[in-house]
């Protein structure tokens, strides 16, 4: 793979190229396992991908958090990013709608294409990108406004509804899709922060899909929820997968197994293995993946 061909931002500096690519894993159980930079085991590429990501590198100041990751994300697929804490899966996810922009020291290199448009092109508008690529965060973060205003906020700022009735329809539709309509229809104008954690997270999903994005990024959406609320959100993800591309970061391997069709395993900034979920969990090809899913570390 020729790295310099695909780089759109400034090319890598020589000393960065020469950083040791093979790092021993700290954990004793996987001490012998090595990962080679840029070499991803499994099937990282697809024919007609939604996202085409090549040689992606992310730096926090001098520290390289994502190391030469190349990956395709297919249309209307649910892909799960798994890996131990600090492996860079959230950082990678946040590159996909440029949420890292607000971090001053964060730099992204490589080629990140959404439907053949360069996400990080200097002329690319980040507002437009985020309208197409929605996001749900780890902690439910509804605005301290009414349930209705929360869902209606996105459509309002993007001017998606011309009339009040259209906006009402969008709100109802989004809440129905998020499975929250029956619980929320009688209290649309009460404050959103008064709901339970699970309801708040589903409201955040409703808020994200209200702007009709093509992709929904989910950063550990269930980590702050109890098992019942988690089950509801997972059910919701399965339903949403019919119409949206969903990328979910999760710490729960069971969750990845339940909701995703493909799974990507990250390790210390490297993308170690990508494959169909069933394959990753039943017959992982890489030693590190196996160690992780069998619970030897992480």
């Amino acid at each position, binding site marked *: 793979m020729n790295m310099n061909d695909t780089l759109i931002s400034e090319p890598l500096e020589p000393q960065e190229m020469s950083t040791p690519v093979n790092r021993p894993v700290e954990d004793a159980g996987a001490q012998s396992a090595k990962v080679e930079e840029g070499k991803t085991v499994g099937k990282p590429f697809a024919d007609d991908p939604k996202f085409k990501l090549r040689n992606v590198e992310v730096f926090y100041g001098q520290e390289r958090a994502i190391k030469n990751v190349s990956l395709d994300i297919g249309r209307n697929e649910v892909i799960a990013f798994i890996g131990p804490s600090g492996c860079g899966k959230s950082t990678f996810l946040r590159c996909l*709608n440029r*949420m890292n922009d*607000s971090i*001053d020291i964060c730099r992204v290199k490589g080629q990140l294409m959404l439907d053949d448009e360069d996400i990080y092109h200097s002329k690319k508008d980040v*507002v*437009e*990108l*985020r*309208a197409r690529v*929605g*996001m*749900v*965060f780890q*902690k439910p*973060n*509804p*605005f*301290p*406004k009414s349930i209705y205003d929360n869902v209606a*906020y*996105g459509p309002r*700022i*993007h001017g998606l509804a011309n009339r009040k009735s259209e906006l009402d329809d969008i709100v109802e539709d989004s809440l129905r899709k998020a499975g929250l309509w029956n619980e929320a229809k009688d209290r649309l104008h009460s*404050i959103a922060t008064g709901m339970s954690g699970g309801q708040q997270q589903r409201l*955040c999903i409703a*808020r*994200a899909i*209200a*702007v009709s994005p093509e992709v929904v990024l989910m950063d550990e959406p269930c980590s702050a929820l109890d098992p019942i609320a988690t089950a509801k959100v997972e059910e919701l993800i399965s339903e949403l997968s019919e119409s949206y591309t969903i990328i979910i970061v999760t710490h729960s391997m069971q969750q990845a197994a339940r909701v995703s069709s493909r799974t990507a395993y990250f390790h210390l900034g490297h993308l170690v293995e990508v494959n169909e979920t069933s394959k990753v969990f039943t017959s992982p090809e890489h030693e590190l993946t196996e160690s992780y899913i069998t619970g030897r570390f992480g």
Partner: protein
Amino acid sequence: MIDPKKQAEIVHKSLKKRYRKEKRFRAYGILAITIALASLIVLFADIINKGHTGFLKTTITLDVEMNAETMYLEDPTDPDAVRMADFVEPLIQSLSEILPEATEEDRGKLRGLINPYASSQLRDELVANPDWMGTTQTITFLAHSNVDVYNKHKGNEAYSIKLSEEQQQYVDKLRDKGVIETSFNDVFFTSGDSRDPARAGVLGAIVGSLLVMFVTLVLSFPIGVAAAIYLEEFAPRNRITDFIEVNINNLAAVPSIIFGLLGLAVFINLFGMPRSVPFVGGLVLTLMTLPTIIISSRAAIKSVPPSIREAAEGVGASKMQVVLHHVLPLAMPGMLTGSIIGMAQALGETAPLLLIGMVAFIVEIPEGFFDAATVLPVQVFLWAGSPELAFIERASAAIMVLLAFLLSMNALAIWLRKRLERRW
């Protein structure tokens, strides 16, 4: 490792000491609060004790006979001649009818009981009602300020030194007859400053303070909030913004009189603005208040949880929309509190205003931003420096008015914060 049995023993032994420490710490706290409260109570008690009489006035009600002869008036039908008539004489005559023991030589003492401005009050009323000529009218006049303090502090030697013994007896007698009465001091709230304490009021200073505060608020709040938003949300982190930040923090610590010198040098000498006017006072206090507002507004913006920003960015809000729709409404209560506290500070500020000439003796109530004016704290300063006893109690009364303003501003800050917070 320590043996668990021994550990329990050690912990048990140390408990007593720990609790003693806690108790001592609590005692220090209670002591500090008690001292603070006691000082506050002493301060308030002293001010109220000295100043409450400032809210009372002493009046003399006389039956005045408008006799052309006693007023040395030759032609009572000529309005110009009426203006020139003697208006002191009818007052003295009226008094001497009530006090028959006063002889011809005591007329000067009688005159000393009535306010020096009573004669001009009588003249104005007579000019307004020409048909009063030749009749007897019951009119209420202000008493002389010496009578005022003597009357309000009965039995206190310190307050009677300005009156002779006879005069004191006269006052006692007049009070017994109901001629001298004490009532609520409306003059204090309806007039400007005066050389005569009995006629001096705080209205001019209150209006001056309101005008100055208005200019300060209109300028400092938008500028301060805009500066805070820019520095916190948009400014790049570099040497220039670091330099600005350090300087804002330094400005907050600059003595206020320096801002007065700056105002004198820049606004008055360089720009040629008039002295003693509320507009320039407002500009100077704006400079002084800005750092406070900027610092508190930045703190308020910083305390907005980042999750709300992320949520808004996540659905595609632009930077400006994030700030206007989410950050600003959430930061507003904190910004308002900081601004009102800054304004309250500015309301109590004297030093910078002295330098731009707002310390002048001004009788008229200011009507605009470019009329000569003074403010409440400067009025207190002027009266407190006056040797007359009657001014001292008015200074204390003016302090109470100033404190009432400050307390109501702080109450407003709390109310606004509560109200805005409830919306979310």
